[in-house]
């Protein structure tokens, strides 16, 4: 029932994850694996395009928080782009929006890293 897909891509040398579907207790483990894989490769900046994410549970937010904290530790950042209203609610409701850089689109997130 739970379904989530992750497409890896590299835009302007920045790893971008296009995530679609539901990030819940089950699928968040796959997201964690994908993010940990990139972090272990010593990437500093990651972008997640969440345009097609329809649901984000607290387990999913936990995975994002953990990755953000690891990246910030090495002066990097986890940039989130194109949040749907429900997903945005989760960030604003928990106050997690204060810690993430959130952009309207993946293009703008990339652009912010190039200046």
């Amino acid at each position, binding site marked *: 029932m739970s379904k989530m897909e992750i497409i890896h891509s590299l835009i302007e040398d920045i790893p971008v994850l296009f995530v679609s579907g539901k990030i819940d207790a089950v699928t968040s483990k796959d997201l964690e694996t994908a993010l940990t894989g990139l972090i272990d490769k010593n990437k500093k900046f990651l972008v997640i395009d969440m345009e097609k994410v329809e649901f984000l549970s607290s*387990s999913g937010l936990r995975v994002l928080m953990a990755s953000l904290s690891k990246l910030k530790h090495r002066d990097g950042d986890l940039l989130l782009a194109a949040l749907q209203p429900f997903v945005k609610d989760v960030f604003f409701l*928990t106050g997690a929006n204060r810690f993430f850089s959130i952009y309207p689109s993946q293009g703008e997130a990339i652009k912010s890293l190039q200046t």
Partner: protein
Amino acid sequence: MTNSLINDSLILLQAVSVIVVAALLISHSPYFTQIIEGRPTTKSRLLLILFFGLVSIYGSVIGINVFGAIINVRDLGPLVAGLACGPVVGLGAGLIGAAFRFSEGGFTAMACSIIVTLAGLFGGLVYLHKGRFPGIVFSTAFAGLFEIFHMLMTLALSRPFDLALHVVEQAFGPMILANGAGMLIFAFIIANVIRERETMRERDRYQLELQIKQAEMVVAADIQKSFLPGKIPSLKGFDIAATTIPAREVGGDFYDFALQDGNLQFVIADVSGKGVPAALFMALSRIIVRACSAPLRGGFERLKCANNMIVDDSGSATSGMFVTLFLGRLNQKDHSLEYVNAGHNPPLLFRADLNSIERMDVTGAALGMMADMEYEQRQLALKPGDVLLSYTDGIVEAMNGQEEFFGENRLRSALVAAARLSAQGILDSVLHELGQFTKGVEQSDDITAIVIKVDG
């Protein structure tokens, strides 16, 4: 000639049938199981010796007479006995077969008796060497090779040599085929039984492990239940009900009450994730919230302190664990409510006079996300008949069969519809509505709710 061929074929068919039935019977008997599981008893050994001895005798009896020599599957029983049960059973069965063959007489009697004894012994030595039944292919090939050995031994031991050579020429092919086929049948059945037993053992082990884990989870659930307030304190002028229903044995939700100077403090919280990690983190958070709240009766600075402790001591920054929490303080004298909402689902406040609902929005980030966060404290006045419903996301994110969320709107409607009942009545009614909505869908997240109603 044709008649004799049909007759021979029927005898062969009969032999195969008898061997299949015998193999099935013995391989599923408890005696055989005891042997293959490496715990042989004297009784099981004796019975198996007798059984395979009888198979050997049958193999002699079924034989076709060619110039006084008996073409047979006499070696089969002792061979199987040795290969599957070891040298003791093999040799025993071989000796029974030998005694019978010797009593039958004929010019190959001595040779055949020695050979059938060796069949059991050799099979047993292979078993000893391998430490177990050597498998279908090996056993079948071994039976074929043994029959070649059988022929050579017959030539070496039987006199007159010419007659022996004639018998061997006649019997060579059929003997290898018959004993090989018989062994194939036996080996196939035995290998199946051994595999079955192994699967069963593995399953038993998993089941035991599962039982231990389940028992541990029951203990963990009991410990966790002991964290919850045994009895909800009563506060004059208020009617209070609360419950928590974990999705699994242990959960990440909690609630708590504390009476201080005529004020009632209450907390409802939800840890990110679920299951054991959430439960462990929950236990830690709760103790920290408690510890911080004790000396700081006044303000809500405790939350800042609790947050810093969680960030520093729990490793939440690296695990990403966090806890959303709503902390309220009811003043018994003026019926005011002070609260802080740290990233928690906004509780709903039903206003009796307006018949409408207010949301008690977030005033700070969830605990454990980052150190040194500020938590804004708000205050409002409660009036008679007002109902405050605090809950965790397990309620609004519960899904029905169509993957729709219960959602805040349905929760609001349920609250308005039940607002005139007692606190327990409202709680039951809301949970009933939720149950109707999710009907048949397994609960996926912990569900917790506190209802506080101002006496009207």
